[in-house]
């Protein structure tokens, strides 16, 4: 095994390169820092609540140690909320990174191209039409997001030239607006208590999350996150444009379809668990890309930036803005937008400005 460092890149090689690769130091360092930050916020999230727990009690309780009362509060009441926050941030961040890389457009995110809007219309429809409040919400959100994803893909196939990144965005925006109008119509038709319930979900929230929210989300993340990482090799060639990618032997059509399904799946499970926490998928990859100094959003960095953003927004809404009672989906915008704007204004290279 050989290791060498040059120009900010670590090269590893086992054998004569049978297992080998290059890791960008700055991106790796960013991932470590973000992971630490996410863990810190996660522990803080578990410690925070009506009954403040000392951190020294929280950490053992996470792995099943400590007195029964603390254990109950941590494992049954607080842990699900923190885990949903962590995982939702991861899947949204990763989903945004997949769509932005695949379409070569920083505006592409599941909440821009109709996938979140599809989940919204399904869930609000379920509440208003009376089939599936409560646990049915998750299934409806999932179904709505997937159907919207497939509709976007099929419509962007037109003309026989395949679904290009540009078409996916344009069609997605169209689908998104159609779904939003339908949601508004449903809300206008809804009875007051139904509308209240729907609006509570529409902002995205981590309140009252239980293990039944965590399990499907954790399971889907355990499948989709590794699949995304395996696909990253193709993302590297897709970034050079469809023609170059094909020339380099990338099966562009099949890869793009798989990426769309994976990206929609990540967003769908996240939305099903916590509602549409807007802006996380759009902004996390951009923040990670600028901090890592890479030409495209780094996958691991984007996922961890999403987790940090959601956990921090949730803490802020509980700690600082307690009297306002803002849902986490509102705070992610308040928190994420200035970070992105700051990064954009201090970008002096043309390379990190786009």
């Amino acid at each position: 095994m050989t290791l060498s460092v040059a120009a900010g890149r670590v090269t590893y090689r086992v054998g004569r390169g049978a297992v080998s690769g290059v890791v960008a130091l700055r991106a790796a360092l960013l991932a470590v820092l973000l992971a630490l930050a996410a863990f810190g916020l996660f522990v803080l999230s578990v410690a925070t609540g009506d009954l403040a727990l000392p951190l020294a009690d929280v950490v053992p309780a996470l792995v099943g140690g400590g007195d029964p009362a603390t254990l109950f509060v941590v494992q049954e009441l607080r842990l699900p909320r923190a885990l949903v926050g962590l995982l939702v941030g991861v899947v949204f961040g990763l989903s945004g990174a997949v769509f932005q890389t695949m379409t070569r457009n920083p505006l592409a995110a599941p909440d821009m191209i109709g996938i979140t809007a599809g989940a919204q219309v399904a869930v609000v429809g379920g509440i208003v039409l009376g089939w599936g409040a409560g646990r049915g919400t998750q299934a409806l959100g999932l179904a709505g997001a997937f159907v919207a994803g497939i509709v976007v893909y099929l419509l962007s196939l037109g003309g026989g030239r395949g679904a290009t990144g540009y078409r996916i965005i344009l069609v997605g925006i169209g689908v998104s607006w159609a779904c939003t109008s339908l949601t508004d119509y449903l809300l206008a038709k809804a009875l007051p208590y139904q509308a209240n319930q729907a609006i509570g979900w529409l902002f995205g929230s981590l309140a009252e999350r239980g293990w039944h929210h965590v399990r499907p989300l954790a399971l889907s993340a355990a499948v989709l996150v590794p699949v995304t990482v395996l696909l990253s090799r193709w993302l590297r060639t897709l970034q050079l444009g469809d023609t170059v990618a094909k020339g380099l032997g990338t099966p562009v059509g099949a890869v793009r379809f798989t990426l769309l399904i994976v990206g929609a799946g990540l967003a769908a499970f996240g939305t099903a668990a916590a509602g549409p926490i807007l802006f996380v998928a759009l902004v996390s990859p951009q923040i990670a890309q600028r901090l890592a100094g890479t030409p495209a959003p780094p996958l691991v960095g984007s996922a961890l930036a999403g987790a940090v953003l959601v956990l921090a927004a949730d803490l802020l809404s509980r700690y600082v803005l307690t009297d306002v009672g803002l849902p986490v989906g509102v705070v992610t915008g308040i928190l994420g937008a200035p970070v992105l704007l700051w990064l954009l204004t201090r970008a002096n290279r043309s390379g990190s400005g786009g």
Partner: protein
Amino acid sequence: MNPDLRANELTLGYAKHVVVDRLSVELPPGRITVIVGANACGKSTLLAALARLLAPRSGSVTLDGKSIHSQPTRQVARSIGLLPQAPVAPAGITVVDLVTRGRSPHQTWWRQWSEEDERAVEGALAATSMGEHRNRPVDELSGGQRQRAWIAMAIAQDTPLLLLDEPTTFLDLAHQIDVLDLVVDLNRAEGKTVVMVLHDLNQACRYADHLIAMKDGQIVRQGAPGAIVDAPLIRDVFAVECEVGSDPVTSTPMIVPLGRHHQRASLPAS
């Protein structure tokens, strides 16, 4: 070593529009072939089909006798390298990162940077004199350097065949000559087969071993430039009257177009 690329009874088109109709051609191995023709004559479409970017309506493109459209695309990518017209690099990507991605068809998800990969990338950077710019972002380079970076990516792909679609478009004269000389280097030093589309007829005549003149999706004439280029051919293919002289440096055909205001008869008598 030198693979045999040919098109057989190839029909190509977009939607309902037929661009190339039953065209057959062999690309001479180990030589530089240049395709010329007026706009919309089908030359770029033909190149796209040779690079399996476009599936034929009928007919086939074969590499050593096997259809490239029925082979795994990754396998074809180890034989045919492609540089499309005016490719766009992602913002902020460095030269060495771009060139490294040319190794993609030789890599697996666990073998991402073998010694062979490193050799190929270093070789490509050296061949294009881009070594000193390796850590610079591609979007900060001059037009000529940028094109050399892309060519370096295609060289790193390490294919015996290289297809270039108008590699000199948007470059100033010095950079045009620079890129074309590089193409000749690749052909002479490594015996690569090159097929490229060029707009400038005089450059095409200079740099081509084999010239293909196209019109309306058909090959009008093909062969060594000196043997096939004359005024009637240019009139037929480009609808332009011209005089064909001899290049003072290379003795290849030199085309001097005539316009309504520039006819030989109007020159002052000597």
